């Protein structure tokens, strides 16, 4: 199988509210596509040329635009961006909050097999089009709606609140210690976001003190014992990455670019209850999430020792917590050690979410997987600016959909 190179990409500023700006999907795509192509050094002519031989494709990740903007057939919208996309095969991929990763996976497969030499992956979501209550209802579609979402206010905070409760049940951790480490995760991600000029929360105030005081007027409970500070926020945004084959790189005379070294993709039981029933024999609370990481290590020939930083799916602090052992940074049940010791902090040995993660950057659902992947690319090419992890050569991401139903991992690293 051929190597898959990452040429570059871009993302929109996740602070922006495209409804307030009065801009539509086409405006969102036009900006992110032109910014991404520019970053990658790709021209419209390159696309036209590749398309003559049917060697370029577009892969769109989006969760549920059918609800948010009442629009389907999303793959076709690239043709609204520029005439260069006329005739370019394009489709939309979906797996709730992991939609972006599915799109990346589909793209890498086409390049690995030699079908395409160039792939344009765009993940996006416009969520500010409806009220937060309505939006919360739509997010319930990522769960088994009839059983876990319908008639329930804010279903996802409740599901991840249950993950927190189950974590406490399964492992021997003091409850206060556990919730304090969750508050530390929130604080780390908010402070990391302050170094990220495209992060939604970069101007917001958060401190460990604020995060650990739950149930106050400014930090109300939202699900189980989780509060607002434990949650990522809904926002609008798009991210794009451009993948290419070695042939394309050579033909364009491009210098070395990072490659996708490995990936994992597993689908766990849909219902949260069934996930918990399924983990009884495992030391991991989310065994299929762990398996996804193991698959990526196997495919890449790397282990946790080789990974310089992680971007993980902190839709809630409780999901980042369990990711720590899934990555292999600690053994399961000992995640708090990595938090308390500073290991996962920005200056630690295994920084998690140097970009700010979902909590810091915001979570435009379909965009997040691609945004994480873009951040891996930025880190290993030294382009992460204010949130650069020094000397990063291999970076790993974990992108989940629903209550860790769809699990995706990618490892991106320098081509050596």
């Amino acid at each position, binding site marked *: 199988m051929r190597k898959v190179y990452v040429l570059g990409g871009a993302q929109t*500023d996740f602070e*922006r509210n495209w*409804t*307030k*700006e*009065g*801009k*539509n999907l*086409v*405006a*969102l*795509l*036009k*900006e992110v596509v032109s910014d991404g192509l520019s970053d990658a050094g790709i021209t419209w002519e390159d696309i036209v040329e590749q398309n003559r031989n049917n060697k370029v494709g577009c892969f769109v990740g989006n969760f549920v635009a059918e609800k948010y903007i009442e629009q389907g057939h999303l793959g076709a919208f690239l043709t609204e961006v520029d005439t260069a996309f006329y005739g370019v095969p394009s489709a939309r991929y979906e797996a709730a909050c992991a939609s972006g990763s599915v799109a990346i996976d589909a793209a890498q497969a086409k390049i690995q097999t030699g079908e395409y030499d160039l792939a344009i992956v765009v993940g996006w979501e416009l969520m500010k089009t409806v009220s937060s209550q309505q939006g919360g209802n739509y997010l319930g579609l990522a769960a088994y709606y009839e059983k876990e979402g319908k008639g329930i206010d804010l279903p996802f905070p409740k599901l991840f609140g249950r993950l927190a409760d189950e974590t406490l049940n399964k492992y021997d951790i003091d409850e206060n210690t556990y919730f304090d480490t969750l508050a530390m995760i929130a604080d780390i991600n908010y402070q990391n976001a*302050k170094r990220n000029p495209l992060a939604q929360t970069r*101007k*917001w*105030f*958060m*401190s460990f*003190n*604020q995060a650990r*005081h739950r149930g*106050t*007027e*400014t*930090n109300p409970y939202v699900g189980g014992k989780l509060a607002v500070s434990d949650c990522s926020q809904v926002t609008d945004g798009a991210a794009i990455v451009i993948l290419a084959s070695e042939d394309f790189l050579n033909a364009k005379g491009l210098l070395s670019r990072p490659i996708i070294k490995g990936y994992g993709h597993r689908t766990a039981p849909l219902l949260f209850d069934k996930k918990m029933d399924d983990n009884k024999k495992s030391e991991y609370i989310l065994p299929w999430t762990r398996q996804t990481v193991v698959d990526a290590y196997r495919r890449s020939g790397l282990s946790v020792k080789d990974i310089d930083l992680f971007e993980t799916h902190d839709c809630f602090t409780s999901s980042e917590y369990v990711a720590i052992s899934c990555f292999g940074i600690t053994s399961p049940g000992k995640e708090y050690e990595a938090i308390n010791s500073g290991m996962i902090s920005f200056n630690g040995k295994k920084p998690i979410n140097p970009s700010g993660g979902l909590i810091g950057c915001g979570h435009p659902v379909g965009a997040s997987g691609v945004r994480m992947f873009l951040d891996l690319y930025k880190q290993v090419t030294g382009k992460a600016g204010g949130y650069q992890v020094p000397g990063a050569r291999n970076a790993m991401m974990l992108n989940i959909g629903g209550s860790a139903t769809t699990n995706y991992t990618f490892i991106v690293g320098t081509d050596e």
Partner: protein
Amino acid sequence: MNAIHTVTVIGATGTMGANVAGIFAAFGDAKVYCIGRDMEKVKRTIPRIIKSVKADSIRENLIPADFSMIEQCISESDLVFESLIEDISVKTDIAQIIAKYLTMNAIACTGSSGLSIKRIAECYPEEKRRHFFGVHMFNPPYNMSLCELISTDYSDEQTKKELKSYLHGKLFRTVVDVNDSPAFLANRIGFQFINEALLFADRYKDNGGIDYIDAILGPFTGRSMAPLLTSDFVGLDVYQAIVDNLYKNTNDYAHETFVLPEFVQNLIKNNWLGRKTGRGLYQTIKHGNDKTSIMVYDIAKARYRNTIPYIFPFAERMKKCFRNGDYQEAFCELINNHSLEADLCLSFLLKYIIYSLYAEKEIGCFSGAADDVMATGFNWCPPYALFYALSETVDVSLLIKERLPEISAKTDITNLLANLKRSNYDYRPFFKSGIQ
């Protein structure tokens, strides 16, 4: 400069004072003595401060106080922030009190938006003058990160450096060094634009006046709020003070555009000061069913009327373009449409670019300061970004000379635009379509 652990805010019940106290208590994690005249009123302000930074956890950092405690508060403080009314005698009086109790390495600041920082500095004894600065923040500071930092001839360079680092690194302000000039930089540029718009409202009162001009210079021209609506939000009395200060104390090519129109003076005489009094340039009418409607002051008829939903073809086309992300097409439309309204709109934008660059140079700010102040103080498309946005379609220098011959005669456009630094800001988010 000491590490800043304890702060005193004088005037903590005022809008800016309260918001500034929140910034110090939250981002600065400082103990903040909140001083007001009436202890009970200060206590009632605490919940507002907490809400302004959305953090109950800062409550223990906020200590309500009144003037009887001023000696204790100031002598314990690493930084004292004065946020009283814009009156030179009020500020010089309090400066003398602060000077008495301020410790040797502590910093004293005024949040004044345009009074002479030097004059206030001179109320301090020589050795304490070195640690006195103007620290002008914008409202609300949680959203608007601009902080104009004004030093005087007396200021200590090292202290200034450390204060700047604190404001930027700890309080996350966008700090812009500004010399002690009338209204500093942001308000000079912003209020020149707004007042000229007000003068044009008067000139074009028979086309509709206030809402006519606001419709020509609305959010589709690169700002979140139309200019005359903005002055209503600021409050016409506060607005008048700023513009009068600029008229009295500056004398550049835009001098005559700082004359406050007579109709505004009349509104102020009637105490119709804008949003805070329910009416000014606009009037909010509350209906029984919780609905409100907006009326506008008709300058020609000297009474309030319903706003007119103006439809200018050039503006409608621009808005449609912005909705679809066709920014250059929108600018082309603006440049090539020669309706009266399109010409007015474009000339205002071009005048804004030139005055921004001129004022930046005149006040002795670094290149790009105008961008920082307009983006983070006014939330307007900053001038450098606007210049480069238009440059993708047209030679802006030539366009300015063609459309603004009078200004081109008064100031050296070529020199101002030569080798213009690239902007750090993306112009695209500033241009709204207004279409839902």
